[in-house]
């Protein structure tokens, strides 16, 4: 029975829906039916002997109201709530069209507020909420020692350690890793016209299998391809395949020339896999080659570890196991002394989820951003509440009239909510359009070093979020004025309630409270943004140890083939000397030098030299970061040097020389001049010929550790970056420097000529991104609060035109009127600023971890922001105040 009942109900629902769209024909049908009904009735009445008029009258009486019957019929057959909604919508659109200025302002405010929220939500969603774009990504673990000052060498493991860890751990389905020390433009694609720079990375053979990435073409690496002597193969990143090979469908199996050697393309990776976006934000990787572990046994710590947990193993279990396995790992199994070297000062392995590694450090920044943008929406809602209240005053008669005509309170609230929903959905549509544009732009900002940023999209979740905030915004700003308006006493409203009646006062008090909360919220935003901005300026002010302006670098290719290490060093020296003398001759170049790793990029450590004659307990000193440089580099980079630079005469025949940074000098020879001292590194002596300032090698904000510089003529560099210093804008030199390099080496690819400043900008880009957004939000909040103050004061001046007119007629001066209005403005502003400042103290403590060199209670920031807020409030109040002071009493009194 229930089933049948349901089918009949379902059938009825369908009919009702259909009837909703067929009003006119159904009404005509009913009209005809009712007409025939009445004719039957009249006929019968006539037969009973009534007069024609009486027959008709009686028939109509018995029928009981044609209009009611029609109405009842419509409500029964159709969807009455939808009819009401449509009616409300039509009415709303009519009113909003009439109030065009109000509508435009409201939709703009909401559009900006909602748009900002959608953008931030999409970013938060992509970076924090969404899992990484890998199969069962929660199983992926980042396995590394805890962070230390010796850079990437202390965050990676050797080939032997990897093999051992993989063999001894039981928690993982498999463990993989990638070569952590490859830089941008490290490959040269030749055989296709001019040599093209490309960025490749070596990954352990099982890398893609462990991550769960399937190629769109061809296959992944096989185990054999990761062995010594295997034919070189490569997998192409999807974007590179499309860009460089025009999406060649038959690419698999073809050979390409990398660094002059033929390499077979075995496959193309899917577009969804973006190595840079996950592991190295804002850098792009073009191709992948298998890391041949046996080639790298002597290279030290080179790979990062990534493990995929077995489904039934928890992170805690894996961590416990890592603490057992870690202390037994050997840097090289052939050197017994190197076993246990992965524990120093009690530091051993630390597991994090890959997700946490990728985005964990951004969590608090993103949360702050999310809250800031939420506050913007709140301010926007308060502002709209205010605008609606102002309208309420002028619409109270309209609603009084509707109540008098029989509209229930619920119906009026419904009408008002429909209005706010229409406003907020228009705002949401505008906001979504804005958000799509901003996000499309953001996703292509290669210069912002945020992980996954290029995968940001407005997805289904973001759309749901939009819907949610649009509806809550509508309820938030529509309900209060709605209830207030519909609760008005009918008689009082219908009476000609002039300005200054009790209802007007009540409205004004509520509007005042709204403006105060707006000012307070804006104040919190301003102070928060001020603190972050000051931190950012402090970060920009950091002495990096080098001069990033007026310098640029380019990756240099050189022939490194030589039968022995010594021969190679000699050959290198000749080539580098040629390069530098040629480049120094380029007009505009003031200095040139070579380095293997630029600061704020890749880095590495090897060896632990100590002052000759002193002993330190083993493991008490982390190894210093090592840079292999040419003469001239120190000057080209703009580093301060005490002592002498390397010279070309420092070669294999002369004594071994090094430069150390001042931190190392202070550590090794506190209170003494390090120049002329000798360091011992194993058997060899290293003569310190100079001391340079610490450079920020790992990050701009972190404290630099120990650094040591070797000459390229005595130690082998891991590649060469040419750095030139110039008095011209660096980019203008790009062509001439490349030309000079090509003259010496036709194989020099057109690698990117990067101003050093962009390297620094890249490093501070996440902070800049957050500061920029928070500052924009704060300014938006300030504008909204200003509008709020202006609206309230302006409205009250308009309402009191007559009163002011009377006062002026009775002798009040313009100055006095101005003072009175300004006094009112200041009262609102001062209360708002006071509340906002108190709240800011709490908020500032909460964001303290994001500040740099700035106290959460920084008085300068607080003072400046409070002044800005007060000044803007004054201006917002001054405009209506001046209008009030210029009221002509004669006109004002004649007005009503």
């Amino acid at each position, binding site marked *: 029975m229930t089933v049948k009942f349901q089918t009949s109900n379902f059938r009825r629902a369908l009919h009702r829906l259909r009837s909703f769209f067929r009003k006119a024909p159904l009404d005509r049908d009913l009209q005809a039916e009712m007409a025939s009904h009445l004719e039957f009735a009249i006929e019968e009445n006539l037969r009973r002997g009534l007069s024609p008029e009486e027959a008709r009258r009686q028939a109509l009486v018995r029928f*009981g*109201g044609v209009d009611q019957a029609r109405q009842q*019929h419509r409500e029964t057959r159709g969807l009455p709530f939808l009819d009401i909604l449509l009616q409300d919508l039509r009415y709303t659109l009519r009113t909003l069209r009439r109030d065009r200025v109000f509508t435009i302002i409201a939709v703009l405010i909401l559009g900006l507020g909602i748009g900002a929220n959608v953008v931030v939500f999409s970013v938060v969603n992509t970076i924090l909420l969404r899992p990484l774009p890998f199969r069962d990504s929660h199983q992926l673990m980042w396995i590394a020692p805890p962070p230390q000052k010796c850079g990437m060498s202390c965050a990676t493991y050797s080939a032997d350690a990897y093999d051992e860890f993989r063999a001894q751990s039981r928690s993982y389905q498999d463990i993989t890793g990638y070569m952590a020390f490859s830089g941008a433009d490290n490959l040269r694609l030749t055989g296709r016209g001019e040599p093209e720079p490309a960025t490749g990375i070596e990954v352990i053979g099982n890398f893609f299998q462990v991550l769960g990435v399937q190629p769109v073409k061809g296959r992944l690496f096989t185990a054999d391809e990761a062995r010594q002597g295997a034919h070189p193969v490569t997998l192409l990143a999807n974007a590179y395949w499309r860009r460089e090979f025009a999406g060649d469908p038959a690419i698999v199996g073809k050979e390409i020339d990398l660094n002059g050697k033929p390499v077979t393309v075995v496959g193309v990776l899917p577009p969804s896999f973006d190595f840079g976006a996950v592991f190295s934000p804002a850098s792009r990787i073009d191709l992948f080659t298998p890391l041949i572990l046996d080639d790298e046994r002597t290279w030290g710590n080179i790979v990062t570890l990534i493990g995929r947990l077995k489904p039934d193993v928890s992170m805690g279990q894996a961590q416990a196991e890592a603490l057992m396995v870690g202390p037994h790992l050997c840097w090289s199994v052939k050197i017994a002394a190197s076993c246990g070297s992965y524990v120093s000062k009690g530091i051993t392995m630390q597991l994090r989820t890959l997700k946490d590694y990728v985005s964990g450090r951004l969590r608090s920044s993103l949360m702050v951003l999310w809250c800031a943008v939420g506050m913007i929406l709140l301010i926007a809602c308060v502002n709209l509440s205010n605008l609606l209240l102002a309208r309420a005053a002028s619409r109270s008669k309209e609603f009084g009239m509707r109540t008098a005509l029989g509209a229930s309170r619920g119906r009026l609230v419904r009408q008002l909510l429909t209005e706010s929903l229409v406003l907020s959905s228009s705002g949401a549509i505008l906001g979504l359009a804005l958000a799509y544009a901003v996000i499309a732009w953001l996703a292509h900002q290669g210069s912002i070093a945020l992980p996954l940023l290029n995968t940001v999209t407005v997805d289904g979740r973001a759309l749901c979020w939009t819907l949610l905030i649009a509806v809550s915004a509508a309820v938030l700003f529509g309900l209060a004025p709605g209830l207030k308006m519909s609760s008005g006493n009918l008689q009082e409203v219908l009476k000609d309630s002039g300005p200054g009646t009790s209802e007007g006062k009540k409205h004004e008090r509520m509007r005042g409270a709204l403006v105060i909360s707006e000012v307070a919220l804006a104040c919190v935003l301003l102070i928060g943004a001020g603190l972050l901005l000051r931190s950012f300026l402090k970060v920009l002010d950091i002495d990096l140890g080098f001069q990033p302006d007026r310098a640029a670098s380019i990756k240099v290719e050189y022939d490194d083939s030589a039968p022995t290490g010594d021969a190679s060093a000699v050959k290198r020296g000749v080539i580098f000397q040629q390069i530098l003398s040629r480049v120094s001759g380029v007009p505009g170049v003031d200095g040139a030098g070579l380095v293997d790793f630029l600061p704020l990029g890749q880095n590495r450590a090897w060896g632990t030299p100590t002052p000759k004659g002193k002993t330190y307990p083993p493991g008490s000193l982390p190894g210093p970061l090592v840079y292999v440089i040419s003469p001239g580099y120190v000057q080209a980079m703009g580093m301060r040097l005490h002592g002498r630079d390397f010279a070309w005469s420092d070669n294999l025949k002369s004594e071994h020389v090094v430069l150390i940074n001042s931190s190392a000098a202070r550590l090794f020879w506190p209170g003494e001049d390090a120049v002329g001292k000798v360091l011992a590194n194993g058997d060899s002596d290293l003569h310190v010929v100079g001391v340079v300032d610490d450079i920020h090698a790992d990050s701009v904000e972190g404290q630099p550790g120990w650094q040591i510089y070797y000459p390229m003529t005595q130690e082998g560099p891991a590649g060469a970056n040419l750095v030139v210093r110039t008095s011209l804008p660096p980019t203008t030199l790009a062509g001439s420097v490349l030309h000079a390099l090509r003259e010496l080496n036709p194989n020099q690819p057109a690698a990117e000529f990067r101003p050093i400043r962009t390297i620094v900008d890249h490093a501070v880009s996440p902070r800049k991104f957050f500061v920029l957004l928070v500052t924009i939000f704060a300014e938006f909040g300030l504008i909204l609060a200003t509008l709020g103050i202006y609206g309230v004061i302006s409205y009250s001046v308009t309402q009191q035109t007559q009163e002011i007119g009377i006062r002026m007629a009775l002798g009040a001066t313009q100055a006095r009127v101005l003072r009175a209005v300004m006094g009112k403005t200041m009262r609102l502003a001062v209360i708002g600023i006071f509340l906002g400042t108190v709240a800011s103290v709490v908020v500032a403590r909460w964001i303290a971890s994001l500040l740099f060199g700035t106290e959460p209670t920084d008085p300068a920031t607080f003072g400046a922001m409070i002044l800005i807020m007060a000044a803007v409030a004054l201006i917002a109040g001054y405009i209506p105040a001046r209008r009030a002071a210029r009221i002509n009493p004669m006109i004002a009194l004649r007005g009503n």
Partner: protein
Amino acid sequence: MGESKLDLLQGTLDLMVLQTLAAMGSQHGYGIARRIEQVSGDEVLLNQGTIYASLVRLQQRGWISAEWGTSDNNRKAKFYEITKEGRKQLAEDAAHWQRLAGVMGRVLAMQEEGGKQ
């Protein structure tokens, strides 16, 4: 019309219409309304117009069907007919009503006895 008339309980009109159609066969709205008035001895307060809401409801549920036709005296009118499903529904609803009426009768009778004691 001095005496107050019975207000129709929710849903009862639908049942009356179904029963009327089951008893009379094909019939137009006026005919149904008149028939109900006659059978109830003019005790039911029925605005004849309300019958049309009931008719459209029953029709949408698929319990009656409708078609324009011509009456005995050559007037165009919409004729309603009970469907097979409608008959089933009628049987169920009628049984339900009779049970309810029986129970109500017994309950009310009990109250009268109580009043006498």
